[in-house]
């Protein structure tokens, strides 16, 4: 099977995660994949016609846009790997400020016609091309990537993860009585109780499962890197109001007060910034 690994604007963490799959990686590389285009690993400069394209990163520049369109045109199956490719990811925080202003301030000397132009926003792939499978995560866990790719290689639809991170988290949800929320490290957490019940803003109740809940298991709040779960992908679903309700129910803090505390911090939701507003489409393709 002819495969390409393409990186657009990203941190390369998703490919890193793919390479962390150990023996399963060796197996897939030796038995299934013939990697014919991957600037990071293979010296070929031209995109060929492909059976499978694995794309990490989102579209931030005109060059990204050109490349993803070319890859799409030449690929039978296209997989968006990681949050930048599926949703826009961390770089979407830049959508909150003007790209032009940023360049003027930080790179006032820029004058080269050789540099690709910056787009107004950071876009997920689906803003420009049709995506066959989405594997969100920052980065997705190695085995999730490998299992999904193996299914795709054998022509089967990958196993989907539809529910929320809480279903994979061992912590016990208990109704608590608190008077305010806590910052992520403001106090030491109890290792057995739900982090929300302890007053932390954990996004597990919004976020798609499939990661194994490594963060809340370690005592760190889920920050939503798998994107919204199926149930939240309806146009009528207000994710923000939903979270306020969950927190209020588990802590007994009045909804108004929860809202007020959440509003103070736009960065809590950095993984939930959507550009291109395609979040309602193609639910059944999100793995």
């Amino acid at each position: 099977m002819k495969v390409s690994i393409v990186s657009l604007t990203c941190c390369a963490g998703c490919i890193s995660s793919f390479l962390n799959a150990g023996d399963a990686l060796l197996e897939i590389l030796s038995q299934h994949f013939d990697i014919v285009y991957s600037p990071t690993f293979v010296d070929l400069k031209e995109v060929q016609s492909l059976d499978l394209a694995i794309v990490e990163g989102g579209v931030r520049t005109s060059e990204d846009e050109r490349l993803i369109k070319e890859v799409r045109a030449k690929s039978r199956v296209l997989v968006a790997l990681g949050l930048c490719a599926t949703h826009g990811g961390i770089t979407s925080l830049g959508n909150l400020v003007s790209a032009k202003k940023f360049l003027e301030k930080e790179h006032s000397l820029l004058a080269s016609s050789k540099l690709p132009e910056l787009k107004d926003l950071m876009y997920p792939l689906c803003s420009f091309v049709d995506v066959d499978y989405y594997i969100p995560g920052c980065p997705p866990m190695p085995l999730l990537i490998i299992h999904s790719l193996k299914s795709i290689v054998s022509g089967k639809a990958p196993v989907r993860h539809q529910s929320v991170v809480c279903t994979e988290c061992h912590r016990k949800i208990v109704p608590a009585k608190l008077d305010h929320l806590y910052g992520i490290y403001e106090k030491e957490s109890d290792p057995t109780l739900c982090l929300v019940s302890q007053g932390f803003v954990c996004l597990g109740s919004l976020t798609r499962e499939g990661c194994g809940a490594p963060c809340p298991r370690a005592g760190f709040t889920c920050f939503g890197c798998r994107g919204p779960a199926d149930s939240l992908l309806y146009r009528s679903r207000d994710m923000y109001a939903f979270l306020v309700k969950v927190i209020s129910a588990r802590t007994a803090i009045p909804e108004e007060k929860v809202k007020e505390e959440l509003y103070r911090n736009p960065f809590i939701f950095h993984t939930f910034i959507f550009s291109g507003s395609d979040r309602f489409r193609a639910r059944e393709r999100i793995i």
Partner: protein
Amino acid sequence: MTSRKEINISPTTRIEGYGKVTIWLDDSGNVSDAHFYATEIRGFDYFLRGMEADRLPFIISRICGVCSTAHVLASVKAIESIYNTQITETAKKLRKLLLMGQTISNHSLVYFFLTLPDFWFSPEEDPSRRNAFQIMREKPEVGKKAIALRSFGTHIMDVIGKREVHIVSVIPGGLINPLKEREREQLLNEAENACEIVKEALTSSKELFERNWQDFVRFGQRKTCYMALTREETLEMYDGRINVIDANGRKLADFADSEYMEHIEEKTSEWTYAKFAFLRSNGRSDGIVQVGPTAHMNINRKATTETANRELKEFKSKFGNPAHVTLLLDYARLIDLMYACEEAKELLEDKELTRTDTRVEVKSRGGKAVGVVEAPRGTLAHEYVLTSNGHLKYIRLIIPTQINNAAINLSVKDAATEFIRDGEVKPGFLNRIEMVI
């Protein structure tokens, strides 16, 4: 510039990060100039402003997925310095171990997946075959070793950092979780094997280097200043002072994290999104600095672990002090890797590592500080200014590639000059240019 003949290499392959190379030829067909430039920009230093400091370490790790742990560590060091927090010895050891894990996973990736194909195949080899996947098909046992070594690094990050890429356990004040005894024993087992793999790789690479030495020298050398974190001229990656030497090995500066920005300055250019960093006292053209494995060899006189110490000394006596040949980087990287494996093993042998005092309380406050660690590619610095309620007011990051940027560009030009004469481009040229990057 556009009227002259141009050679473009796009995208550059088998390097970390994404870039292009443009080489300009004059009328007689000789190299007049060359640029290696970054075509990507995300604007971290701009859009993170306003964020609360506690959230910074795990978000800022998204700058680089292959060296994320180094970013987290530089970040918490800067924040703790502002908060005036002293972390416990246990936390410090665990963080050091994490940084070794980072070094191992990154160096092994670069060695086996990116540079080994250059030595395994000739540069004239069919480009579709000249890659790590082909090596794995031809010699599966090399692939197995590469994966085992990299796995040791990623397991350290998974077990202690709680995620393999973009760790979450390291927070201002220490680490959220202590290490369990069972986990320590398990990692220690892997450490033995990792050390053996690196020793083998060193032996075979040394042969390769000796065989191809004349060829490697032709790729050029760039006599610049060198900089690295060090503990009294002993190899150190987490906690030490920063030393700078000039091209003759004379010490130019010796300073602490907090003085970093007084010594290093950065400027933007008109032709690349990447910024250039250089030694302030010497100016932009004389103050070109290189960081990374070769700089580690040039700055330090010894290492605390046995094999790495022997190899470091051998390197220095063989290639001069400082060593300048560009491709020695790959050799030096293996010595780094040796050190990281041995150091990780020594840390894991320490039973105190599983103590539960990994976290102290922090008190947030405003101020300005710099956190410095040795990332796999070289010295990494994060500077933050926090408001009194602990929000980010200003951020400046000086990453190793920015420092090496100038030297890389000069090396590209040198290598291009060597391989292009009178309009004639020698075969294997493209790959050779990429080898120096």
